[in-house]
């Protein structure tokens, strides 16, 4: 059945916006990716806006549009030659193609192109973004795709019914809304129940690396922990999400240090990590057992940061099911073989008490090296430390340093950073840690600097710990009593300044992001099994109540249906017109046989013939569906109008 011209016009009017919307959903999803340059996704968006504004005057023929497509192809080929990643170059091409189909003549083929390109963009975005905002273009795509498909289907059904062309109206918004809600529910169920097979291919989700300085083998003083960067780098939550676990987590794990890289060799202007001879390699999927003590299980969501270090808290007992190969050296530095290009989830057991420490090797020469300690620092230590044991002297140094001022804005002298710091008596944590570490060495105690994060921020809305870049911190480990002991000389102002007050909305947003990571991006086969087991457990517990609810629901449905049926019967009886009409006819001398049509009846008494014929015609029009059906009041009105008239 070929759609006639009028139908095509309707098709154009109805589908233009819908297919554009499908395409824009795809573009919007890809715009969330950090890999795609804004210039690419803004092209089809601007073209679509112009299209909506200018209408048909803003269109190219298929041939002209295909030139845009070919030009895009050549452009992308050049991009690949210049080293652009294949997947990203492919999305660039898709976006240029999207521009072409937006400005193309709106034919049926063009509408198909738009829908296909929109879908491809959505799928490409699934690989190139992990933003929680992806859910919006996804849902919008479900809605517009459903409507657009229905619209294209309906457009071909303009029919010549009994001499008049009838266009099939679109399904009402309400019904489509129910359908799309059902789509969302079924999609969620499928997503939860279907098995996962993780082969990690080219199509695995990618995530841009968060830049992070200070976590490397060589750090220059002034490069670490100086910026108030609110980017969240880690989210930590108890594995069990019950209230007791959350409270326990808050009580014991909020104020811990998260250890990253340990730097032993001082260069005069910075620190360098000492190459350890012995490394232990733990393969992907294995556990790292550090201590057998009991503790609580936590989950750490590590963003794709530019470094490979695994940040771990005081009292770490074990790391479970490693997401990649991990190396551990004698300093307790845990490191992926290479920095992961996606978010990783780490399962940890952490002791309740933070003094539970990882066994580390004894100090080496680098940790006692005094070759680059500035003279000014040595003199200052001698003057500050006073008399007593080395530990007592170090305690006095710490007290003195803690009395100074924590300041992120003070510049760091690139040649004599420590001398400048000792003069100004203000600086950031890295300078305090370096000063303390070198002071300890001056006093004959091996020491080193550790870069990591301290404390973090509790998210009340989601019940988890957020560690932002601004929580980056340096501290010192000193060899005392045959153990490496942590010492922190940074003034308390640091903690106050790192605790910025973020609005509630930010907390909610971060909570939504974690939920997205937890339940969507990182949802694995184990999660599925856990969820199913939990559901089964809940089901068993709630079985009597659910059974009762089911029985009550059935009773309610039956009762409501009966009431509806009775109501419908009553309404039908109330609205039945024949009894009323028959009574009127009897009153006017006519007895109508059952099922006898009006037009076969003789003229009722006291009624004009033309009036009666007009009445019969009107009656039949409503009875056979040409006009709206009458209600009782309509019939009464018509009967009242049947007045006697002389012919």
């Amino acid at each position, binding site marked *: 059945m070929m759609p006639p011209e009028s139908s095509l016009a309707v098709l154009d009017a109805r589908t233009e916006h819908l297919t554009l919307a499908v395409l824009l959903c795809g573009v919007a999803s890809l715009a969330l990716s950090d890999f795609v340059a804004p210039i690419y996704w803004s092209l089809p968006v601007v073209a679509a806006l112009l299209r909506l504004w200018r209408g048909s005057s803003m269109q190219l023929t298929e041939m002209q549009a295909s030139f845009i497509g070919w030009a895009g192809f050549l452009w992308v080929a050049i991009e690949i030659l210049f080293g652009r990643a294949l997947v990203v170059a492919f999305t660039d091409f898709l976006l240029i193609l999207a521009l072409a189909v937006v400005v193309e003549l709106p034919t049926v083929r063009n509408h198909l192109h738009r829908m296909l390109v929109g879908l491809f963009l959505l799928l490409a975005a699934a690989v190139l973004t992990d933003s929680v905002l992806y859910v919006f273009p996804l849902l919008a795509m479900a809605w517009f795709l459903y409507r657009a498909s229905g619209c294209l289907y309906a457009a071909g059904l303009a029919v010549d019914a009994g001499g008049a062309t*009838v266009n099939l109206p679109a399904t009402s918004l309400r019904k489509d809304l129910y359908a799309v809600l059902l789509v969302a529910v079924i999609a969620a169920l499928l997503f939860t129940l279907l098995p996962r097979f993780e082969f990690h291919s080219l199509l695995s989700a990618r995530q841009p690396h968060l830049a992070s300085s200070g976590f490397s083998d060589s750090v220059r003083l002034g490069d670490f922990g100086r910026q108030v960067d609110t980017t969240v780098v880690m989210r930590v939550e108890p594995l069990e999400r019950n209230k007791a676990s959350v409270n326990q987590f808050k009580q014991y794990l909020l104020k811990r240090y998260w250890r990253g890289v340990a730097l032993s060799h001082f260069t005069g202007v910075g620190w360098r990590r000492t190459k350890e001879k012995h490394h232990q390699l733990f393969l992907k999927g294995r556990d790292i057992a550090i201590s057998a003590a009991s503790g609580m299980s936590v989950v750490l969501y590590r963003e794709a940061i530019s470094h490979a270090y695994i940040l771990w808290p005081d009292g770490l007992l074990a790391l479970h099911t490693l997401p990649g190969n991990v190396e551990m050296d004698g300093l307790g530095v845990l490191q992926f073989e290479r920095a992961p290009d996606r978010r990783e989830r780490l399962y940890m057991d952490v002791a309740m008490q933070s003094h539970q420490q990882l066994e580390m090797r004894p100090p080496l020469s680098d940790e006692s090296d005094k070759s680059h300690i500035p003279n000014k620092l040595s003199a200052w230590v001698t003057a500050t430390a006073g008399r007593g044991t080395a530990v007592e002297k170090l305690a006095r140094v710490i007290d003195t340093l803690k009395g100074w001022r924590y300041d992120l804005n003070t510049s760091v002298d690139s040649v004599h950073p420590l001398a400048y710091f000792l003069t100004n008596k203000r600086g950031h944590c890295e300078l305090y840690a370096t000063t303390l570490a070198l002071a300890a060495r001056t006093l004959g105690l091996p020491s080193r600097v550790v870069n990591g994060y301290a404390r973090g921020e509790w998210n009340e809305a989601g019940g988890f710990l957020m560690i932002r870049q601004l929580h980056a911190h340096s501290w010192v480990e000193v060899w005392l009593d045959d153990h490496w002991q942590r010492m922190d000389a940074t003034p308390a102002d640091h903690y106050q300044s790192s605790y910025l007050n973020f609005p509630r909305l930010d907390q909610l947003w971060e909570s939504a992001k974690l939920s997205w990571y937890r339940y969507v991006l990182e949802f694995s086969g184990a999660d599925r099994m856990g969820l199913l087991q939990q559901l089964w457990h809940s089901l068993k517990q709630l079985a009597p109540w659910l059974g009762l609810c089911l029985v009550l629901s059935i009773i309610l449905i039956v009762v409501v249906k009966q009431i509806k049926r009775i109501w419908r019967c009553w309404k039908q009886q109330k609205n039945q017109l024949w009894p009323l009409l028959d009574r009127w006819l009897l009153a006017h001398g006519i007895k109508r046989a059952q099922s006898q049509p009006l037009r076969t009846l003789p003229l009722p008494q006291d009624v004009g013939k033309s009036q009666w014929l007009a009445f019969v015609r009107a009656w039949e029009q409503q009875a056979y569906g040409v006009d709206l059906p009458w209600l009782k009041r309509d019939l009464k009105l018509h009967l009242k109008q049947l007045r006697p008239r002389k012919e």
Partner: protein
Amino acid sequence: MAYDPAELKLPAWLLLLLDRLICVSLPLFPCWKLSFSRPGVVFVAGLIGVWAAALYSGNNLLYLCGAMLLALLWVGLWQGVQLLGRVVLPVFPQLQAASVYVMRRQQEGLFSSPCSGMVQLEGLFGREKLKLNALCYGDTLLWYGRFRIQDRGLYPCRQLQLTTAAPLGLFFVRCLRQVTLELVVLPLPIAWFPQFHSPDNHDSKTPGDAWHDLRAYIAGDSPKLIHWRKAQAEPDSWSVKRFTSSDGIQHHHCLKLDLRLPAGMPLVAFEKLMGQAWFWLKKQSGSKHAQLYIGSQRYDLCHDADYQQAVHALAMAEPGLGGIAAVDGVILSLCNDAA
């Protein structure tokens, strides 16, 4: 089909493959079948690709996209099934043999369509295959179709097939409904007037006799009886005069139809006889006294059931040997003058 992969300029071999695939019907439930349209095959192929990518990569967003597309397909299927389940079958009209009947019947408020769509109805009525289409939207059901059945008769139908591609046009859902339907095909009515009721005789016997009322025009009424002064262009508006003198004649309300076909007389004559009987029967609709004898079988036309039985009997009537009833009334029979 509104949108077709052919629009995408796919190669001919691929379109041929699609055509092969769309012939495959999958059982859905007992009496329900599912087959895919061309765009549906392409959609399913794409969906398989998405799922393969999702399963291979473990990318949860691809899982989500695949789940969304699959759910879209399922909900579309569910709506199609709902639509077919809810469609209220049309009341088939009485047809006239060898005439084209254009049906356009709009029903409102009888059902609630879960989506807009078209339903195709097919059924084998006797040996005749009839097709009807229905546009369904909101609470409206618009049946339309065009039939032509050559021969008079009663055409029973025991099974109807309903098909729809709604709401997305990606697949066809078919269901078989067991029904008990009969399509009544009646002969072309041929106007005739009993001797004593002929307008000519009427004019001559009761000159100047005034008509006392009007009734609506029925196809086949004599043009002489139409009240032309009141008439407008459309036959719906025509009225037919009724004369007082004709009311007094009661015996013409009984018609005896003789089904015997004289030897050598063609069957066409018998069909004409049926046409005359049908003309008479139509005029008796609503009559309080009319009786029809078909052979020896009597029908009191004042009762609806009997009237309908008479219509059915007329549709089914075949030349026979039985005589006619021995009662007063007009005899309608075939007479071979040559014999």
